[in-house]
């Protein structure tokens, strides 16, 4: 751990203050947005809300055989994934965990799985289902941004 990360005193004897990990702030905000998108899609899957879809074909996508993994609606996986990333990012912003390599790698790992699964679902929309769901695309974009924002965690991991 470097003195820059630790908050140890500098040459003048004053404690060196460090900013909170900004990428985790970005990850947390994005994950919260993604969480609400996933919650909205899950509410639709459970018949609780109508899906405002514009010109896209949400219903076709949501009715396809790919809309569930076994008995579990795909949006439920999204809720779980985003909630986990959000929780980890919030935890990783606490002073005690700001330098935590494990939390950083967990965020990165979950984001990597999320972006890979989103890419798979987007591929299905384009090549198999032949229909687009604007909310699914929005979620895929958010997950990609979460993944990009989690990349600095690799550097943090290598440094500590």
């Amino acid at each position: 751990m470097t003195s820059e990360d630790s908050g140890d005193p500098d040459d003048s004897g004053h404690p060196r203050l460090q900013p909170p990990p900004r990428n985790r702030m970005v990850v947390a905000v994005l994950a919260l947005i993604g969480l609400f998108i996933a919650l909205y899609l899950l509410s639709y899957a459970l018949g609780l809300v109508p899906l405002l879809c514009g010109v896209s074909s949400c219903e076709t996508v949501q009715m396809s055989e790919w809309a569930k993994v076994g008995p579990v609606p795909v949006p439920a996986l999204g809720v779980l994934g985003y909630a986990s990333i959000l929780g980890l990012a919030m935890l990783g912003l606490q002073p005690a965990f700001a330098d935590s390599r494990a939390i950083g790698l967990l965020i990165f790992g979950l984001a990597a799985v999320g972006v890979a699964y989103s890419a798979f679902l987007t591929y299905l929309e384009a090549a198999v289902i032949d229909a687009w769901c604007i909310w699914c695309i929005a979620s895929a974009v958010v997950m990609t941004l979460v993944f990009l924002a989690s990349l600095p965690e690799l550097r943090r991991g290598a440094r500590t």
Partner: protein
Amino acid sequence: MSKKNRDRKYGSAESKGGNELKTFYWVIAAVAIVGIGIVGYSVGSKAMSPTVSAPIVLQGIDDTKLLEMANPRVKGDPNAPITIMEFADFQCPACGGFFAEVTPQIEAEFINTGKAKFLFYDFPLVQVHPNAFLAARAARCADDQGQFWPFHDTLYRTQGRWSTLQNPAGDFEDYAEQLGLDTGDFTDCLRSDRHADVISASLELGTKLQLPGTPTIMVGSGPGMRRRVASTIEGIREGVAAVQTGGG
């Protein structure tokens, strides 16, 4: 986070790091409030809507009035000599099968040739199909905009999805949008009691006729002349032939 720990690590609230964290929490709170507001409003407005999804009690209705109120939807030439009647439930899988397999043959052989007209009566068996009544009302709401049959077809094609939902109104609104209906008018209709009397009358009519289930198919050639037939194309052919030879 304890304030003491945060100040020691990131600096006090007045420092750059502390300010960043403060801004971050404000952003998180704003996103949370907006998100909860939108999702909560969507769920709440749906839950609180006065949508009628079960039969209503009809009082003081005689048989003549009941027949009039049941108001079947007609496909084909209204002056065709033969009438094929279906009493159906949009949530009934057998009705879905009838729609997919038999209806196209009925259309090709009898409707499009002008030999018969097809009458659709609602008979939603809500005890076993809790979404059937709302589906029937949704089709009538589409009928208000001249789109009963496209909506009827959509309901059967998508039966597997909305049948399993706790509240399928949102799906029905999606279908209306896809069919190019005025979604505002459709939603106003669906989230009300409109057409509940018509569907209930049709249901009452079917009950008085002691229908064995759905779909029930009848063939007739005039007022009061009808015979129940099997819900297969062969059964309907036989029924039409019998009616044409005066056996209706």
